């Protein structure tokens, strides 16, 4: 712990608040996520887990508060390169196959030096379906393809919204393996779950979101 004690947290949120139609979704949230750490965002349906991740990713404008990445506050539009977001919508084109989708997203969002499409597909277990159009994939296979995109992304910070949804047992194991590798690599991850039924076996903090009345 000593070597990172002086380093600023990879992600620091201060006084973060967001409201929709004048109803607060969350108010003055403060939390830190250090490199090598996962933050489990917990809460029931409608507690604002997805909204929090979208605000952090910069997809939504926060009503107040700051988000700092590695010690420097980053404005909404500048956050893009530092975070990879896995949301409910896969962002895949149904008419393109797995390789074409991944290649496009890698060229759009950047790619780790050491990664390529074939290796990422092999990691998520889609090597045999590299040329299957996304239209013909199951929800679980689409999720795996999104995980491959995440794996190629150069972002140090992962924002994972319900990463376990639609996945079989091996898929859940895969997510946990990927999160662990990312954390070992000096990255960090925010993971939303309904409960602790599938938490990755890594150093975690927890953030419980309650429904604001």
């Amino acid at each position, binding site marked *: 712990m000593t070597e990172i004690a002086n380093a600023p947290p990879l992600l620091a949120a201060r006084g973060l608040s967001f409201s929709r139609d004048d109803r607060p979704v969350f108010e003055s949230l403060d939390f830190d996520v250090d490199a090598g750490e996962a933050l489990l965002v917990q809460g029931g349906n409608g507690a604002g887990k997805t909204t929090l991740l979208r605000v952090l990713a910069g997809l939504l404008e926060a009503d107040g508060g700051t988000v700092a990445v590695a010690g420097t506050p980053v404005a909404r539009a500048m956050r893009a390169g530092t975070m990879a977001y896995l949301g409910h919508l896969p962002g895949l*084109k149904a008419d*393109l196959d797995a390789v074409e989708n991944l290649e496009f997203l890698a060229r759009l969002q950047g790619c780790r030096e050491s990664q390529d499409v074939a290796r990422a597909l092999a990691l998520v277990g889609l090597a045999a379906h590299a040329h299957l159009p996304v239209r013909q994939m199951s929800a679980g296979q689409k999720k795996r393809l999104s995980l491959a995109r995440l794996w190629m992304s150069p972002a140090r910070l992962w924002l994972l919204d319900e990463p376990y949804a639609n996945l079989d047992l091996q898929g859940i194991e895969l997510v946990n393996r990927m999160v662990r590798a990312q954390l070992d690599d000096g990255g960090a991850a925010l993971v939303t779950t309904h409960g602790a039924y599938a938490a990755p076996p890594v150093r975690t903090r927890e953030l419980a979101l309650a429904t604001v009345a």
Partner: protein
Amino acid sequence: MSAAPTLLGSASALVARDLRLLWRRRGDALQPALFAVLVVVLFALALGNDAATLQRVAPGVLWVAAVLAGLLALDTLFRGDAEDGSLEQWMLAPVPLAWLVLVRTAVHWATTTLPLLAATPLLAELLGLPRAQLPVLLGGLALGTPLLSLLGAVVAALTIGMRRSGILLALLALPLYVPVLVFGAGSVAIAAQGHDPSGGLLLLAAGLAAALVLAPVTAAAAIRIALN
């Protein structure tokens, strides 16, 4: 594969993706141009026995056909990318969203309107437009239709949050389209009277230059609002 995406790299990736998607759905690709041909042919048939009238309304008809075809294609500009979450991933890319919007709009224009532009000399012949006026008509369309696409991109971006926005999109876009239509069709009419048509064309060019800079930024802001 480069590690950090550049403006040119992301643009070429987006162009390659859009052309590939177009090829997979090539049946849909020619629809706007075919629609415009249909409008022109129906006009020609309806007024067929009166060559003088046809010749007089030809520039107007061709321009209206181009505008309607553009409106028809407008809904496909961002809808697909909004529904499958691609726009979210665009917003998370380290290149400006406005740049991606500009590239997307340019490809959309090239694939939906360029075929129509290529067919225009033929359609003009069908309506009996004097050949001397054809360069003015083509020049006006070449300047005016990209301007229509850029204006349309702003309106399309504003309405991506709505489920069925087809007719609303047309209603919102129409007031913005009217000046382009007036100057475009008007310049051909002025040329027909033997005057210099360059005034209208220059105004279209000025509008296009302004829209090239302002429309992508506005549309990107509209997308951020609409996806809230």
